[in-house]
């Protein structure tokens, strides 16, 4: 299958306030297949936010190219939906209008069909009883559900999620993860999921990209070969902990990571 998203030797520099260039990304190359769920893990300063801005077309890479459907990304496109770390809803709009915000903001008007589309998305994220509530009345988890529905409104092919559950408590976080998998199953999309949590990455993704910091580089790419649908039982599987150990090892002791530790992983790319 033709890759959906490709990054080819992407390097990015930005200027600090003192005018010194800082390298945020160095020679990052990877590709994502259609409807693949890819997680990116790495410590702070590994260029995850830069990656998000490059993919969404908000910035252009200094070197290399970012391609979606084989064409370089030169400006933001409708094919991409973004879920941010904080729900960042508009506090003066109710749930329904927050979900519709992208269309309203873009075109000023909303059709009946789009309203129905928003309603079904609200239902999909489990908030049908809260459509007329204001964001201030919702819990953090519910607000992030609204954020997910908003990102899905323009029916994007690619969903970029920037540590979407990091502001939530551990229990809500787990629940949201499984809900995300259910939504992804109902309307398949290509997902790029940025996270700090190794277990979350292994639990959700088909492929985990491990980044290392200063400058941000791709240090390893691991295919997660766990059966779907995944559930709380997945966490107890032996292979699950092997994957998480392996990733942890790669993050904390990159040089000592033994690539042959996991027998059934054949697609290791060590950069």
């Amino acid at each position: 299958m033709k890759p959906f998203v490709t990054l080819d030797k992407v390097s990015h520099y930005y200027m600090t306030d003192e005018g010194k260039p800082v390298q945020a990304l160095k020679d990052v190359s990877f590709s994502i297949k259609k409807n693949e769920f890819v997680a990116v893990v790495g410590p702070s300063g590994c260029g995850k936010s830069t990656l998000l801005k490059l993919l969404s077309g908000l910035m252009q890479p200094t070197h290399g190219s970012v391609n979606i459907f084989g064409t370089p990304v030169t400006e933001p496109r409708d094919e991409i939906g973004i879920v941010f770390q904080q729900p960042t809803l508009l506090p003066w709009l109710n749930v329904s209008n927050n979900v519709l915000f992208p269309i309203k903001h873009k075109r000023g008007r909303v059709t009946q069909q789009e309203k129905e589309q928003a309603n079904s998305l609200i239902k999909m994220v489990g908030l049908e009883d809260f459509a007329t509530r204001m964001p201030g009345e919702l819990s953090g988890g519910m607000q992030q559900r609204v954020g997910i529905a908003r990102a899905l409104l323009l029916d994007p092919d690619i969903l970029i999620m920037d540590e979407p559950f990091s502001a939530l408590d551990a229990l809500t976080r787990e629940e949201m993860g499984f809900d995300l998998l259910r939504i992804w199953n109902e309307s398949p999309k290509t997902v790029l999921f940025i996270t700090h949590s190794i277990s979350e990455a292994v639990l959700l993704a088909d492929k985990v990209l491990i980044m290392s910091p200063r400058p941000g580089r791709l240090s390893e790419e691991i295919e997660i070969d766990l059966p779907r649908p995944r559930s709380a039982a997945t966490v107890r599987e032996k292979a699950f902990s092997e994957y998480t150990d392996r990733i942890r090892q790669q993050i904390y002791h990159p040089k000592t990571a033994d690539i042959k530790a996991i027998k059934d992983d054949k697609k290791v790319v060590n950069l």
Partner: protein
Amino acid sequence: MSEFTVSKTQILKRYLPAITLALILPAWELICRLFDVPSYILPAPSEIYQAFVEVDFDRWGLHLWATLKVALLGFALSMFISIPLAMLMVNSKYLSKTLYPILVVVQSTPVVAIAPLLITMFGSGEAPRLAITCLITFFPLVVSATTGMMATPPELIDLSRSLRAPRYKEIFAIRLPYALPHIFSGMKVAVTLAIIGAVVAEFVAAEQGLGYFIQFSTSFFKVPQAFAALIFLSVVSLALFKLVHWVQAYFFGWTMAKEKA
């Protein structure tokens, strides 16, 4: 038992301001009578009340209207200038770098000191009084609006740009509403400053208004009358503050929810 004591303290908390006032007034009255304090030094509350009712209702109305007109028009004018200016400053780094120092210089110049100058510049009509009110209310409004608009989460700006929405929409549909809680805080400060501005202007040049009436009363040693006008003035100022609060709560209830959080 404990529940009872809690509700008791709650009642006490609620009525504490009224109780304080109810204790201060008789004490004040008592001190004035006991020590025979002359009314031109400190009039007793009863004398102030007497002076208040002796002045015609129409006369109070006339002075109140004169002060309110200047305060509210100046405040409105200030809003009309400061909010668009804040939008321009948020939109352009260069403009904000250029204007901010000027604003700070203007703010740090005492308005009372430039009031006579403004009168000679603008003549003796309504214009200098509006200018003084505008000048005194301007800064809190610009600062609160700018701060509010700058406090908009960068993700929302990213969202707006990722939708390729025009720049004016970013300002009007995201930044400006986001700044409303800040703007209302600024308005609460500015509306009471507007009364101060109007009074300062009346002290310098006016033939009516509550500020003028205070000065006029004092110069004739009608100190109880001056006190009556002073108290009237603070009640008006408080009412305006409450009015802004009410508008915020009624039309922009969500901004209050944010304050609580």
